């Protein structure tokens, strides 16, 4: 405990500019060393964790997949992913089985939901040209209502064969993937919403439509180059 204050004690002398600069410089240098050491020390574990989380998410929506390669779909073709996503490119994941055969493509879609952005990972079947799986990566939707998008079996059935074929103009999807009122789905590119969780359901549909609309025109012409694992 500090000594009790003395009422007749003289006021402390103001510190010199040199002392202030010296202290701030010293502390900043020390903090810099701590931060860089922590970054360097944890980087390997963080990268490994991210890879495990990604593989787990991809394996969940693409049955039979055993390994995942990351790619960028660019206007010039498909390139292995490294660093930041280049302008105009879309990141996706190619999933392969133990024999190295392509089992499916996974990509991320995101759209604003009820409480926050809903981020989903969807699977694309390059043979049938449909979206055949969906998993939620991040959401803060209302428990018991919006968060049903991850568990509601009727809603998840929408993603068994959701049409995502390209149109006559190969730069766009043939049909916009859209969410319709529960029970009114008529076309294979429509998603039946969850009753009471329409905003969240629509976020899933919008996220997938936007992402597939950007990815598939860049990806489909070069699918042949992905048939075997790299």
């Amino acid at each position: 405990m500090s000594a009790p204050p003395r009422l007749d004690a003289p006021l402390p002398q103001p510190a010199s500019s040199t002392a202030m600069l010296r202290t701030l410089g010293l502390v900043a240098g020390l903090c810099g060393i701590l931060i860089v050491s922590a970054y360097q020390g944890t980087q390997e574990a963080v990268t490994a964790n991210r890879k495990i989380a990604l593989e787990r998410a991809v394996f969940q929506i693409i049955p039979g997949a055993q390994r995942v390669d990351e790619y960028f779909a660019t206007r010039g073709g498909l390139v292995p992913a490294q660093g930041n996503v280049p302008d105009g490119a879309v990141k996706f994941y190619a999933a392969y089985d133990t024999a190295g055969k392509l089992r499916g493509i996974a990509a991320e879609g995101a759209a604003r939901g009820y409480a926050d952005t809903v981020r989903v990972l969807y699977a694309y079947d390059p043979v049938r040209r449909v979206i055949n799986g969906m998993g939620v990566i991040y959401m803060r939707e209302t428990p018991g209502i919006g968060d049903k998008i991850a568990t509601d079996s009727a809603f998840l059935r929408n993603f068994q064969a959701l049409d995502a074929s390209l149109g006559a103009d190969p730069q766009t999807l043939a049909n916009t993937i859209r969410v319709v009122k529960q029970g009114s789905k008529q076309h294979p590119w429509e998603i039946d919403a969850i009753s009471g969780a329409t905003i969240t359901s629509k976020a899933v549909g919008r996220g997938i439509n936007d992402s597939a609309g950007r990815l598939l025109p860049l990806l489909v012409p070069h699918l042949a180059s992905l048939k075997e694992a790299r």
Partner: protein
Amino acid sequence: MSLPGPKPRSNLEELLEGIWKQNPVFIMMLGMCPTLAVSVSAVNALSMGLATGFVLSGSTLLVSLIRNIVPREVRIATYILIIATFVTVVDYLIQAISLAIYEALGAFIQLIVVNCIILGRAEAHAARNPPLRALLNALGMSMGFTIGLLALGAVREILGAGKLFGISLFGPDFQPWVVMMLPPGGFFVLGAWLLFFNWFNRRKTPVASDKPAQGHAHV
């Protein structure tokens, strides 16, 4: 002339202060933002408590170690720099330990930097006390904060999801009390705990029967 000061506290009293007498959540009511926001489950609450405890203990120790060379004109800037450093370190550590917890806690990890318990302890305690006392006090405050968060998180998870630490307690027929997982649930449970703490403290402090009771509400 000098004023009579309070009796110096023992090391044990220093440690226990934050756990009960000056509990940051239930008595001082500091750091309410993460307390209410991340206490939807016991795991989140525990993780947040430990992360805040790491920052509190680390920054307190460093502030105390350099307390004699820091001019008072730049002390706040120095403390904030130190606190921000420990928050960045804990941010990397949580990412390295578990990405699931990192996602669950979200921006509240970075927001530890503005948790007023930490700057408050640096300014009010660590800057005036030797490292051992400062560290003991910080550890006590960290434990008090973690206990506070756990008290909220456990109740909210049990009532709102029928689970504790992710383990189902009541079987599949349990109908979750969803509001407990939502922001109002945080206020309900916090209010109930504050009621308990105030009732308990008043019970311990006898009030003279011929005088009306003095209000002690900390809210």
